[in-house]
């Protein structure tokens, strides 16, 4: 079993509020989060000696360029182009760097801008495979890829649109308690089912709204956090896997299924100890797969699982307690941080108005990068309250 994470903690979960469109570049959003984290922690910029950065719209720059933009001089630097897996992977990298002494305080940030052409530019050249073998088929972007996966999943396991709708409606109820969520109007199952088709079987409320924004947190040892007067959320276990099950003809499972036993063993808790779950939800079908592949229910059982539970913050199985990307918006790579930042807020007692009662343990899962016909990056972690 991989070594545990000792006294590594996560502090100052921070969001630069999302906006539908922005004139600012990605670096501006990233710097806003960095500045806010420094103010909240009381740390000087020079104290940040590690940086993990993710962005889909920072090009032609990377994390390297950002150090000069922001006047940072880190001795540990990660550029993590892993989309929806970025947050968990950043935490995993940062925790190991601090454990090993390669850095003392690592800032983990993802941020992206959005304007009239940023999204279409992104999908046109997302990867060489998608440019050659997906984009020419109607330029549907991730909607088309996930429509095919959703179609196969519905046929394979008997899931219905209403099953996906229950998740979307619950997440909207959670978003209504989150002032940072962009979509807070009430959503009923009837309205979900009546929405216009985008890429059938996907309809409007199955798809995230691209937007601009950023998310971040700091990783350090607990003693350092306490000296700063910060309540640190502990990292109990973390996994990642890339290009799992390459021979499956359609993606019906992800790398979590390979690594979940390692995750729960490292964390020292079982799924029934989890008080809230943050799954990556660019589309509901992948949220269902995470519930299955991480061991909350059997394969193909997510529809029945969701039917029997209340997924709101007041319910018996709170999922995506801030509304998830489906209601908060998808700020590019920050979508891969959204659930992690929300989980840290919940466990640190900072989720005012939507706190899950007595939350001790959270599971956060990430999923990223539809390189051709499936998402390649999977990651997950288990966090514990201070």
């Amino acid at each position, binding site marked *: 079993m991989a070594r545990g994470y000792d006294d590594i903690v996560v502090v100052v979960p921070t969001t630069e509020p999302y906006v539908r469109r922005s004139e600012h570049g990605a670096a501006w959003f990233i710097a806003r989060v960095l500045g806010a984290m420094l103010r909240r922690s009381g740390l000087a910029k020079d104290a940040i000696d590690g940086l993990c950065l993710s962005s889909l719209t920072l090009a032609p720059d990377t994390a390297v360029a950002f150090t000069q933009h922001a006047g940072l001089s880190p001795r540990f630097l990660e550029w993590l182009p892993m989309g929806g897996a970025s947050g968990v992977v950043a935490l995993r990298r940062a925790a190991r760097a601090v454990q090993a002494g390669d850095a003392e305080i690592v800032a983990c940030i993802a941020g992206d801008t959005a304007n009239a052409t940023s*999204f*279409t530019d992104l*999908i*046109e050249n997302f990867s*060489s*495979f998608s440019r*050659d*073998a*997906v*984009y*020419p*088929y*109607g*330029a*549907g*972007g991730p*909607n*088309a890829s996930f*429509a*095919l*996966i*959703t*179609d*196969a999943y519905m*046929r394979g396991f008997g899931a219905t649109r209403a099953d996906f709708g229950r998740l979307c409606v619950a997440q909207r109820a959670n978003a209504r308690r989150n002032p940072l969520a962009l979509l807070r109007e009430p959503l009923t199952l009837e309205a979900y089912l009546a929405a*216009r*088709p*985008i*890429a*059938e*079987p*996907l309809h409007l409320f199955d798809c995230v709204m691209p937007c601009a924004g950023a998310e971040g947190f700091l990783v350090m040892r607990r003693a350092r956090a306490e000296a700063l007067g910060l309540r640190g959320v502990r990292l109990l276990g973390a996994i990642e896997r890339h290009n799992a099950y*390459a021979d499956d*003809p*359609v993606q019906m499972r992800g790398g979590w299924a390979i690594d979940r036993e390692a995750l729960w063993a490292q964390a020292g808790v079982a799924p029934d100890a989890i008080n809230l779950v943050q799954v990556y939800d660019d589309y509901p079908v992948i949220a269902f797969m995470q519930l299955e592949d991480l061991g909350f229910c059997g394969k193909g059982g997510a529809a029945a699982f969701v039917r029997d539970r209340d997924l709101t913050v007041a319910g018996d199985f709170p999922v995506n307690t801030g509304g998830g990307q489906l209601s908060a918006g998808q700020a590019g790579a920050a979508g891969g941080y959204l659930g992690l930042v929300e989980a840290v807020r919940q466990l640190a007692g900072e989720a005012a108005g939507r706190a899950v009662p007595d939350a001790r343990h959270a599971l956060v899962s990430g999923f990223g990068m539809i390189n*051709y*016909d499936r998402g390649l990056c999977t990651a997950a972690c288990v966090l514990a309250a201070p």
Partner: protein
Amino acid sequence: MRAAAAAGRFALQRCGACGRAQYPPRAFCTACLSDNVEWEVLAFAPGTLLARCRLHHSNALRFRPALPLDLGLVRLDAGPVAVCFLAGVPAIGAGVTVRARLDVAGHPVLDAAA
């Protein structure tokens, strides 16, 4: 692949070392990493329809007049999986025939028909 598609033929990559067929094309074999990958030029490729979707929104203006577009995920009998335009309404699990052509932008694309 482009030259073959211009002639209405589907050029499928196959490894000269281990025989593995692959799609989308790449510079080396995904199985054994040999760079001895060859083109197998076919009149058509048989396959099975795994999943379908109907696209009502496109991010590129050039596709919008053609909406809605039916797309399918086809497992070629040769092994790999290909995203294709769907012609007609082949049933899921049914055999389809995949042919290549150049689209108006000069890009090779695949059509799957019952």
